[in-house]
């Protein structure tokens, strides 16, 4: 049961990664984050219906597309609201959220859809005799989530652009003075954010149904993972996702109706006891 929760946490962490990156680098809270995930899942489903190919192949089409969408959004909308009054960001991203939801509603109606992965979704691995059995799909999803985080932290920790990421996060004015093109950095950050959330949206769609209005609910999970783990810490985000996943699984075990409730309660407790998050820096900036 706990393992199951941990594996679900991988998905939440994948949702939250993009939020963590865009907040970490740009101090931008993107309220349309969840809607971008749902939108990507719909695009993947269109691709699968049109071609008859597996959703796993759709990933390779949707991800580059979502990177472009990310850059486009950054250039068209977010560059105008970064570094100004946060209320502008909220209005802009909230507006984007509503716009995406309505476009999806128009295009795909309110009917839920799912991405069919065939019997891969039902296969399982026996770990310890017949007692501990885990699904192959949740395991794959978790491994992918960890892989994404490993790649991302290598990128941010080791590369020249990654260094510029962190410098921009610390002090954008001085980074600019050092010759860092912060608009480019922001565009890359947002491309990463949209790509990771698109991946999460597709993985979510392979497991459950999704519909045009699901975005905000997904956004909540992403937020909770980021806050529990601590702002600005990628591994904290994974940990936050896992804590949320485990809490929800335990909640669902007690009573199926308690799944979300227990998750939210754990989130509130963390917020009360350690507002900076488990891996957050001690100082709140």
């Amino acid at each position: 049961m706990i393992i199951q929760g941990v594996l679900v946490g991988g998905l939440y962490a994948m949702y939250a990664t993009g939020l963590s990156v865009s907040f970490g680098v740009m101090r931008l809270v993107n309220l349309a984050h969840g809607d971008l995930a749902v939108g990507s899942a719909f695009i993947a489903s269109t691709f699968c219906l049109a071609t008859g190919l597996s959703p796993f192949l759709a990933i390779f089409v949707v991800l580059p597309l979502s990177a472009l969408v990310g850059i486009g959004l950054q250039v068209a909308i977010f560059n105008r609201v970064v570094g100004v009054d946060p209320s502008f960001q909220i209005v802009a991203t909230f507006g984007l959220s509503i716009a995406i939801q309505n476009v999806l509603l128009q295009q795909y109606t309110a009917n839920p859809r799912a991405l069919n992965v065939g019997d891969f979704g039902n296969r399982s691995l026996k770990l310890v005799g017949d007692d501990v059995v885990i699904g192959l799909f949740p395991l794959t999803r978790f491994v992918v989530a960890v892989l994404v985080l490993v790649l991302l932290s290598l990128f941010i920790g080791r590369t020249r652009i990654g260094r510029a990421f962190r410098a921009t996060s610390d002090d954008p004015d001085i980074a600019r003075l050092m010759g860092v093109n912060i608009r480019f950095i922001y565009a890359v950050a947002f491309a990463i954010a949209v790509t990771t959330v698109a991946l999460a949206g597709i993985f979510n769609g392979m497991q459950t149904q999704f519909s045009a209005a699901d975005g905000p609910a997904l956004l909540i999970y992403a937020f909770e993972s980021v806050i529990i783990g601590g702002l600005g810490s990628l591994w904290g985000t994974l940990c936050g996702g896992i804590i949320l996943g485990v809490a929800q699984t335990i909640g669902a075990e007690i009573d199926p109706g308690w799944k979300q409730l227990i998750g939210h309660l754990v989130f509130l407790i963390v917020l009360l006891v350690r507002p900076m998050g488990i891996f957050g820096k001690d100082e709140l900036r």
Partner: protein
Amino acid sequence: MTLLEVRNLSAGYGQFQALFDVSLNVNEGAAIAVIGANGAGKSTLLKSIAGVVDVIFGEIIFDGESIVNLQPHERLNRGIALVPEGRRIFRSLTVDENLSIGAYSRRQGVWNRELVYEVFPMLAKLTDRRADKLSGGEQQALAIGRALMSNPRLLLLDEVSLGLAPIIVKKLYEILPRIRATGCSLIYVEQDTNQALSASEYAYCLLEGQVSLEGKPADLSREQIASAYFGIGVNK
């Protein structure tokens, strides 16, 4: 030869004008001091040379070309580096990474990591330490080192002594001649006049956004400096 010429410069922040008709000259390889009280416009002068403040009127000529319309990073590419007031190092990056960002422009020259560590030995043993864990003096050394990594021809130093113990300030100022020896010109802005004047061959004093006095430090009397600095007892 003149490296930098600031001509009749007026600059400010939005509605607020901080500099009025300021002119200044820096020869190649020179060390210039800009002194003045808090709020006299010293930092604004450096920032407008570096390109982070709006110029209202006037010209800034660097190496024979006008740079008034260039972005900060374009000015950096031509060899103007600013050590900002309050150090402003990248707090979550290590010492080494701060220097790497300083070299982000990939301007070629004599300065590299090894030389910075040689000139600032206090940094050499802290390469992997996070910058926010450094002492004030070490942070200031890092801020200067970071600027040097871009191989500047003109280094703008904004209040190097701010908040540091006199012995540390003395140490940092002892290093400046080594920087000049690489052919880099310096402008230092200070409130602490003695330190700045003793390290420079020409000085400007700003008062309420205007040049109130200029000359070779040796030619300026204490009384002249005091009246130009505080704007009292001026007898022209």
